[in-house]
């Protein structure tokens, strides 16, 4: 139904209705994407709102409703990157001692590893965070990520390589830098 009214939804009287429909359909996934990138649910709420506001303001630049997801992901990740870059550096509290204790008590290597990933992820740069979330949460290919970010595929590969190396380093996992 949506595809049939592509042109009308982009240019005609139905554009507000089309926007509302697409926004509703993508709101949950967009909020989760923003929250993962930003690591802060309140910040993610504002970022998601701002991204939809930008999308509506530039609605005329969307040429195909079927491309909405890719088009909007690009807007959202750009808003998130902007927020991360403006955010003041947070104080990183060293909780490695607590983690070791917890590890002994929990005896679950998986829990420790996930905690370590969370801490390492929070230290990644904005670009690296975005690349990791798009690759390993949305399961986008390198080329798809490059298209959404407007950067060359090689840049995406490089960002993923360095991000995973940092994350792997936190887990003391050796890295050979291939097969990302």
């Amino acid at each position, binding site marked *: 139904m949506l595809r049939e009214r592509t042109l009308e939804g982009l240019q005609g009287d139905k554009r507000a209705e089309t926007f509302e429909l697409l926004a509703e359909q993508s709101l949950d996934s967009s*909020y989760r994407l923003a*929250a993962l990138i930003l690591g802060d649910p309140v910040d993610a709420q504002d970022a998601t709102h701002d991204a*939809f*506001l930008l999308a509506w303001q*530039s609605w005329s630049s969307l040429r195909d409703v079927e491309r909405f997801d890719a088009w909007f992901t690009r807007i959202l990740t750009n808003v998130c990157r902007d927020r991360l870059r403006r955010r003041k550096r947070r104080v990183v509290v060293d909780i490695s001692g607590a983690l070791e204790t917890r590890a002994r008590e929990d005896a679950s290597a998986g829990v420790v590893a*996930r905690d370590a990933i969370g801490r390492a992820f929070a230290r990644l740069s904005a670009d690296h965070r975005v690349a990791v979330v798009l690759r390993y*949460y949305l399961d986008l290919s390198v080329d798809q990520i490059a298209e959404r970010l*407007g950067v060359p595929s090689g840049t995406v590969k490089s960002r993923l390589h360095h991000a995973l190396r940092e994350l*792997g380093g936190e887990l003391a996992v050796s890295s050979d830098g291939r097969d990302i």
Partner: protein
Amino acid sequence: MSTATRELVRAWLREEASHLRTPLGLRESVAAIPRPAAGVLTVAPPMRRIAVIVFASALLLGLLGSAAYVGGHPGPRLPGVSILAYIDSGTLYFVDSDGTDARWIQSGIQSNTNPRQLAWSSSGAYLVVTRDHGTDNALVVVDSEGMSIGTIVVRHWPQYSWSTVGDEIAVVEQGSVLEGTSAQVRVYTPEGTLVRRLRVPQEVVVITALDWSPDGRQIVIAGCIACDDTLDSERALTRNLWLLDAYGGRPVVLADLAAAYPLWPVAYVPSGDTITVGTLSPCALLESEGGCSDVWSVPINGGEPQLVLGNVVGARWSPQGSDVLITRVVDGSLVLFVAPSDHLDLMHRLADNLSPVFELPGWSPDGSRILYSEDDANSPSMWSIKPDGSDKVRLAENAAAAAWQPVPR
């Protein structure tokens, strides 16, 4: 990279995502976005953010069960607010033209290397800036959200002009006397796709400025025959104005100003029947009373060029053509004047102590405001002001160049 790390990252992201629930307030505020008429802007007021924090805190404290979201919806923003793009220390920023919501766009922008450092397309949908690209230059096109959408690589001294009737950009590839090549003008889409090449007289080696006519049919170029590509020759070279057909037809010579130094800038006056062009004289900025440029008016029907302003730094006609901004050196500092275009002798002093590093002052798209930079204790500040000198608004600090988006978002 080990598979184990990738799988751990993937599992961690999915587990984190599984705990996330879209806040009710976000659903309501997003649903409210398209209700204002298109083109009328909205902004998230502090109340919404405060309400979000209260809501989130209350949830954490267990104070809210199924309580309704009480935050306000985005309120109206002033209509007519558009984006000012500006460069500060090689970084591109956007700020709303009322001076609010400054935002970082991208770094690595060239500044003080090109007479025209950034420019919006006539639709206001795209902005072009110049970056280094190895030993070459790249014109990077960003959209109004600041996202890069296209790159056009240019060997050296990039010159460009947006079409006045569509989102096409004419870009100069300079020629070289040493290599025996002529200058070229190519037309691209904002995404960087070559659309067509324009016919340029073979004898033109360097194009120092160009401007697209108001009707979109022609492009005026200020060119130089047998110039070397460093542009610093003091030889008496032939410098002409030509009119190129924007769709590939035959070019015609418009005028020969026989200037020893580059013709720059060149611009159509809004009526489209006249071109203004500056001729530079060899003098140091701020040391020559008035300025080192003369501004000539050249009718496109082939009439004789007329000197309209002598000894100025620069002049810029308002979008309606009724007024002219004139920058002059007075007692060793830059002073901004405004004058009616039919009485350029009736100059009204508008601002003193302009920043010499700032691109020439400019007009807002509707001609209601003027953009300029003042040197304030060695820290240039960008201001907007009405042509009568009232309603002065500080917009940003340390801006080296700026461009006002033509239409409201």
